[in-house]
């Protein structure tokens, strides 16, 4: 999943011809402890917050859609709830759906 988000983010950024986000690669390495993964996710999230304004509105909506789809796949595979919840938060920060009142 992390690899997927990394690719997705990079693709979007490259398509926009804005910035490069090379250090996301670190998320994809094997043999990491849970703590380091958590830290990497936090870094990822922070970078996303700083740079999300450079995504087009359409790309941000697309990002949400794809991240949510991915989170749903993760749920089926019993992947950590922390990761799923991170994905959902990231999806909301890409594009927030209307509130259900």
């Amino acid at each position, binding site marked *: 999943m992390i690899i997927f988000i990394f690719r997705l983010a990079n693709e979007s950024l490259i398509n926009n011809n804005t910035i490069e986000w090379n250090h996301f690669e670190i998320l994809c390495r094997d043999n990491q402890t849970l703590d380091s993964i958590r830290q990497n996710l936090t870094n990822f999230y922070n970078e996303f*917050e700083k740079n999300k*304004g450079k995504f087009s509105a359409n790309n941000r909506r697309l990002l949400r859609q794809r991240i949510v789809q991915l989170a749903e796949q993760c749920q089926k595979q019993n992947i950590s709830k922390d990761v799923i919840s991170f994905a959902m938060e990231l999806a909301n920060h890409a594009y927030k759906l209307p509130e259900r*009142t």
Partner: protein
Amino acid sequence: MNVQAGNSAFCFLTCTPKPETLEFARELAQDALQYNVDVFIMIDFNNVNLSDINASPNIQLLQIPNEQCFKHNYRNTIWLGGSRVVTAWDKALLYFNLINKNYSFVWLSEDDVFFPSVQSFRSLHELYSNTSDFIVPSIELNLLGDASYWHWGWANGNFFPPWAHAMVNVIGLSQRMLIAVDNHVQWLGRVPFHEFLFNIIAMHLNYTIVAPPELTTDVWLASYSFEDIRRRPHNLYHPLKNLTIQKLWRQRFVF
């Protein structure tokens, strides 16, 4: 979906515009030319001489006599007691409902809301204004109409439950949302308190409400550091009343 695409407006709500607000308004207006948003500054104090203000041709300065607001029922929007029954809030709502109704989407922002950059507004506007009726920092529900806490006593008699409220220091309103507000104001004879007015109307009419993450930093009381801003440069921040700090922090940003 929002009623129609078209030009949008952004309006600063001020007592009297400070140089820092004018400077940012100029910058915003220049950038907004590219995506069809007209920038306004509503000036509450009618003793301010507009010809003394060095604005740019891209910014429209507005003043409306208090009497006009009383005549058209635009009063009490932020009133919780005291003598100032009419403020820039009433005047802006009157202006975009009765005087200049051309905009498909209108943003209202108090001048103590901090925008880290013009980009922070632009991305928010482009992301949500075409698909939302009401953009607001949050939605707090009061489903049963319990008037025993907060300012809910003021809602009694103005709205049937369910109720909802939020901080509204910066909000976005679609044209049909503005029309709904005007309908309610004309029925009631005044404007209900702003922190529940918009939320309740949007909820009752089943309009599209978005509380984006970028506005979660619009709160009643907070103290922000530059580091906070740097971590989330696309958020808007309230309150940041020191306009000199606002200006300095904007200058420190390099995207």
